[in-house]
């Protein structure tokens, strides 16, 4: 039964061989983990360093007397602009949230017939969408920019949101997830008298919930971190998102501004990390389940 299968992801290895090999593995992994997390720790530590510690020689890795002054500096003003940093945070959060919600709705809607209905043109449409997986965003960026310019959406939220809603990856993931739902279940619903819309809302939607988590997190991360799209689609300062703001900060950086910049980095990266930690459980499960086949 699919429900059972989905709830119990196949356990990896349970064969436990406690050997010196095992200890070596732990050692390698732990050393690697320390190295991997150094820049993050350094970032957090720097974000809370007072000016005196930033200027210190020899430089110190960890903060001694933490302060939140860097954050208040950041809130007041940043570089040549008078747009408060909170505005960039709002832009990023707003755009990312809308894109996540929209992507889930549109790709689940489209994935259902692609996975379960044998309508004329299905294979053609699906192949086109899958091919797009391999085309980088930079190839389509110029005509995309021209389309947006024609609609007059340059420097608006529309430009950042609408094109991002129809991503191949989301559709592909949703389709992989809907496909294993037994046809008999949909047929039972049909026999019970459910319309296609009812089947979608009552059966498909609840069953693909675990995939939402995965799709949400990946969509959120990629939109939140996207640098190229806002770079070309926005003009005014008040439309910029966090990565663009960070780029402005990094230009002509002085030691004095280091603290504020680290605080900015902190605010840019921590939300994403928290979102990921929160959803991590679902992500690996979904990926195991959808199995990267297709």
């Amino acid at each position, binding site marked *: *039964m699919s*429900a*059972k299968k989905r709830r119990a992801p196949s356990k990896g290895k349970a064969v436990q061989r406690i050997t010196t090999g095992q200890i070596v593995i732990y050692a390698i992994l732990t050393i690697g983990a320390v190295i991997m997390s150094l820049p993050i720790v350094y970032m957090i530590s720097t974000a809370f360093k007072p000016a005196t510690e930033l200027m210190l020689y020899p430089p110190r890795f960890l903060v001694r007397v933490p302060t939140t002054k860097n954050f208040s500096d950041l809130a007041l003003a940043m570089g040549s602009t008078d747009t408060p940093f909170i505005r960039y945070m709002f832009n990023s959060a707003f755009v990312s949230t809308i894109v996540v919600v929209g992507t889930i709705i549109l790709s689940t809607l489209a994935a259902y017939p692609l996975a379960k209905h044998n309508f004329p043109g299905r294979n053609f449409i699906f192949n086109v969408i899958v091919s797009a997986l391999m085309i980088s965003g930079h190839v389509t960026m110029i005509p995309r920019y021209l389309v947006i310019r024609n609609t007059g959406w340059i420097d608006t939220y529309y430009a950042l949101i609408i094109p991002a809603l129809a991503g191949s990856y989301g559709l592909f993931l949703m389709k992989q997830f809907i496909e294993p739902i037994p046809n008999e*279940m949909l047929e039972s619903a049909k026999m019970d008298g459910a319309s296609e819309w009812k089947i979608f809302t009552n059966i498909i939607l609840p069953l693909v919930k675990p995939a939402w988590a995965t799709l949400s997190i990946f969509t959120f991360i990629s939109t939140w971190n996207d640098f190229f799209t806002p770079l070309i689609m926005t003009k005014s300062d008040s439309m910029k998102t966090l990565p663009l703001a960070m780029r402005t900060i990094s230009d002509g950086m002085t030691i004095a501004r280091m603290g504020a910049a680290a605080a900015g980095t902190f605010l840019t990266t921590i939300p994403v990390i928290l979102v990921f930690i929160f959803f991590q459980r679902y992500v690996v499960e979904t990926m195991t389940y959808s199995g990267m086949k297709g």
Partner: protein
Amino acid sequence: MVTVRLENIEKVFEQKTPSGEVSKVFALKNINLTIIDGETIAVVGPSGCGKSTLLRVIAGLEKATDGNVYFDDKLVNDVEPKDRGIGIVFQNYALYPHFKSKGNLSFFFKLRKTKEEVINERVRVTAETLGVGFEELLNRKPGQLSGGQQQRVALGRCIIKEPTIFLLDEPLSNLDAKLRERTRIELKRLLRRFKVTTFYVTHDQVEAVTLGDRIAVMKSGQILQVAPYREIYKHPVNMFVANFIGLPPMKFLDVKLNGQKLIGEGFEIEISSEVAKAIGDENRKLALGIRPENIEISSNPETGFYKAKIDVIEPLPNEGAKYVYFSYAENAESVAKAELSYEGKVGDTIYVQLDSKKIYIFDKDTEESIVAQDRVFSIVNA
């Protein structure tokens, strides 16, 4: 209640060969079948024979390429599945995993915006029908139920809407042997009680025998024979049916007609002039079949007995019998039924006689029956 009538049903899939040609594959071919009001037809056949496709055509889940489906005298080809008054149980049950059992039962009514009290009453009655312990399953989700419990819920979902036709697609095959036996009996009781027209797909002939008033044997998209079990067992229309129905499966011996005798490798058998006449041509290639219970074994040579060697002995205490697989010669093997107390051993030499009144004779080329026990199928026109 309804009589279901299938008329010249065909289902064709088009398949592209690697060379680009379109070839037609018949999933169902020229199906004519009437399921009489209140009757249970059990459809058996090897996997891929089209039995499930036929069920889906009756349900309306699949459209036939050609032919008509009637419920009583009403043509239902274009009637939506939901409007056909059908209850269905799938092999994998297809329960909605995110609804509790109660939600699974009541989904049909929810879609029709039935009042809560009415639904509750229906659920209560259904639970009563399905017997002890069903009540307790209602507040659990399918993931928390055992296979047998899921099966009962699936059955509940089928009967709660009071269908006029039951379609059951291998509903027991996902259960373990013990449970399957018990559920089979329970199902029989239910079918008796409801007297609903039932189309029961299975690959297990024991199920077919227990539940089916008549049995339909299918192969490669065609129905070969429809009849009560006794009739099919006694008078199969061809080698496939003869082999498929009956346990252990019927073995075939190559024989030739010679006057009033059939001659095989290492044995002979006298036949009546009527049978000989039915065979007619002495050059015809024939296959001789016989049920295990119609073979007599002796450890001493007697008249009409021919020498053979025991290959395998399979004791079946449940049936109170031993099946003795023996061979007259290299390619002449068959199987006989013996008492459980039979003491022969593998490798022993035995003497075997076939009951000439209970033999089956088939044309080896067409595989059609010529003679089945007391019935003569076709008489060759001289």
